């Protein structure tokens, strides 16, 4: 099992890395001429052209270029960013914490909210509240990240003025206490976190609701009811535990998806995480930075998805014991 997962995801990772290497080089005329002829791209200065030439080592043979590329990847050395004039690795490590923080918090929030609402909804299946909640959740799940973020931004920042529109902290903040700094950064992160939570909550909710409805219909829940067990106990000890088995897999997939969502949300709120960095790198064709960020994003997303695939069959204790019981009978 683990071999299969590793080989599939490993293959895809290598594929992405190869694409990253060959795409710019296979463009007619190479990256520089390509960029020059592009009306949406930036205008290149002589200095930038020189940097690109150096970066791509276009004078070397393709084989040498490829070896250098692989070597850089293995040593996490992606060169210097054109626009930031800083090593890419340094930039990534500067901006990564912002993304990890909003993605992490919204993972926790969306899981907690999705699980609670899903259980509640499944428990009250066939009542009006359940249907209404489900339609609302389907609607939220249908909207894309940037649209959800934009609606929140328009309402809470622009119209009501409760939250700052952009950034991760107030420039020239007039406070010395760590408390003031923390409040300020939470204030800035609130809308990005709420946006990511909203997009993510609906899939958790729908899964938990579905599982809950299935578990409630199973014989052991009927038998537990026959035992006259109190509602709370039935819900929390019997249904909860069984309905939450598949959540872990979903959580891993959601984390992967949240990193993608963070690209849009950070761009929208000008939040200085690696998502915004990626958007800027792509827009200004800052190739070294793009290389580095693609590497980080692919690695993160593929890692969490692979973990989900690998762990999926291992979570149910019955899978382990099933064969043993079969032998007994």
């Amino acid at each position, binding site marked *: 099992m683990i071999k299969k997962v590793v080989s599939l995801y490993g293959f*895809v990772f290598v594929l992405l890395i190869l*694409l990253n290497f060959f*795409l*710019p080089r296979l463009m007619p005329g190479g990256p520089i001429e390509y960029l020059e002829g592009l*009306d949406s791209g930036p205008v290149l200065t002589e200095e930038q052209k020189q940097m690109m030439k150096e970066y791509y080592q276009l004078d070397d043979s393709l084989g040498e270029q490829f070896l250098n590329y692989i070597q850089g990847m293995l040593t996490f050395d992606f060169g210097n960013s054109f626009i930031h004039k800083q090593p890419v690795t340094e930039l990534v490590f500067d901006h990564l914490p912002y993304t990890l923080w909003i993605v992490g918090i919204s993972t926790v929030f969306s899981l907690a909210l999705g699980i609670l609402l899903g259980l509640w909804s499944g428990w009250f299946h066939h009542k009006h509240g359940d249907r209404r909640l489900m339609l609302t959740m389907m609607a939220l799940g249908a909207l894309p990240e940037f649209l959800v973020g934009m609606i929140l931004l328009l309402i809470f920042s622009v119209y009501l003025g409760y939250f700052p529109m952009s950034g991760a902290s107030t420039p020239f903040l007039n406070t010395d206490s760590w408390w003031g700094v923390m409040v300020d950064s939470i204030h800035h992160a609130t809308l990005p976190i709420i946006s990511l939570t909203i997009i993510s909550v609906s899939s958790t909710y729908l899964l938990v609701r579905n599982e809950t409805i299935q578990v409630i219909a199973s014989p052991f829940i009927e038998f537990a009811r*026959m035992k*006259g067990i109190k509602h709370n106990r039935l819900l929390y000890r019997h249904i909860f535990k069984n309905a939450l088995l598949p959540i872990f897999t979903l959580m891993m997939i959601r984390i992967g998806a949240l990193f993608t969502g963070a690209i849009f949300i950070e761009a929208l709120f000008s939040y200085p995480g690696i998502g915004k960095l990626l958007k800027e790198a*792509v827009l200004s064709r800052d190739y070294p930075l793009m290389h580095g960020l693609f590497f980080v994003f692919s690695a993160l997303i593929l890692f969490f998805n692979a973990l989900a695939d690998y762990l999926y069959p291992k979570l149910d204790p019955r899978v382990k*014991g099933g064969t043993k019981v079969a032998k007994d*009978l």
Partner: protein
Amino acid sequence: MQKIYKLPAIIIVLFLIVAFIGPAFVPYDPFSYDAAAYLEPSAEHWLGTSQLGQDIFSQLIYGTRTSLLIGISIAACSTFLVVVLGLLAGYFSLADKVINGVANILLVLPDLLLILLIVAFTGGGIEQLIIILSLLSWPAYMRIVRSVVLTLKERDFVKASQSFGGNHFYILRAHILPHLRPIVKTKFILTCKSAILTEAGLAFLGLGDPNVVSWGSMLNVAFSQPTIFLDSSWVWIVLPPVILLAVLTLSLTFLLEEKQPSKVRMKKVEIHPIQGAEKDLSVHQVNISFDKKAIVNDVSFQVKRGEIVSLIGPSGSGKTTMARAMYGLLPAGVWSGDIQYDGHSVKNQDFANRHYWKTCAFIYQDARSAFNPLLKLKEQFLEVGVTMEQAIQAVEEVSLSKDILDKFPHECSGGMLSRALIALAFINKPDFIIADEPTSALDPILKKEIVQLLVEKVRAYNVSLLFITHDLDVAYAISDRVLSIENQHVEEEKLCHA
């Protein structure tokens, strides 16, 4: 209420009309910047102008066309790929290997990253986007089509067609394709939605096609000028594309949603005392029917204290339904009559709270499915309100070791679980026990043991037992009376004690 489910379809038709003929009626070229920048809405410019002096209303209409064009073309290409590749993979096992292998890889590829990568190096024209998204979005639904084809292939009408010499193309088109319609419809709508959103997202990031107007690119331009948020100009610059995108997305999402069938109204419950049955389990004029199909008709009988009564009948005769009705598990809508334990009706709202596992207990059909697989037996014993000592005593009385309480159900054999279930049923010394085919999942030797154990306990505690079984030998061997259920009626069998 019914009408609201047609709303998404109506909205989408409106969008299609606007996209199709709208641009012909628009007053300005969306790219012309003859007007002044940031004009407020007026008779000439219904939604004002953007920072470049472009008419926002005209841009919105052209943007509608762009979005729908992209959505529909990608959905069409992708659905075409789904059907063709799905048919090939399902029908020809050689093609299956290749197609499925590619699908596995594509499913794992992070779509958005790949699109960003390609757009960064190729510029991001609309044609490129259509090709990339079409190529990336077929695997999930291809698998569904493939599995449908794999099942259909084995069905008689396809086999027959093959044996009459129908060629592959004919069979695929005439016999298999028509079954794929619902899948194709869902796939088309979902892909249309996600394609529209992907384009809008990329354009919002500034990676759209610079030669076309789209809602996403309008938002990109608007958000690159934060000054519009200082006065109210965002209301006509940002709000319209946001609202249109949201409405279109939601309409596409709910296009597939249908009205749920209306629910059965709860009947008001009336309870009358049953004459002369204050100390027994009484079934009084019970009728049960599901979907107007009668299961049992006008059934009345009693089980007296300390009596073992068997209810026998062929499978499908309604024995288990009867057992569930007697335990008050059937919803009020499907049965009439009354069932009372010592004069307490199961129709009472609080019957479950007051009597389950106190006055009456139930032995479930299959012990393995009765226990929660994720909780230790100990927990499933203690939750009926007994102490640990009582639980240990109960399992030891059915000759199990007390270690079983620390095990999960999957760690126990079927026989152990059956014994545990009996121990559990008697643990609170109830007056009545209903056993619903407790032996049907057991092998003959085990069955004898379990039945003996059950009878022993019933006699020891002076419990009334209603024993439901299809096994006549067991029924006649242990019962004081045998009731037989057949043709929707219950009759008492004559017993001759040998």
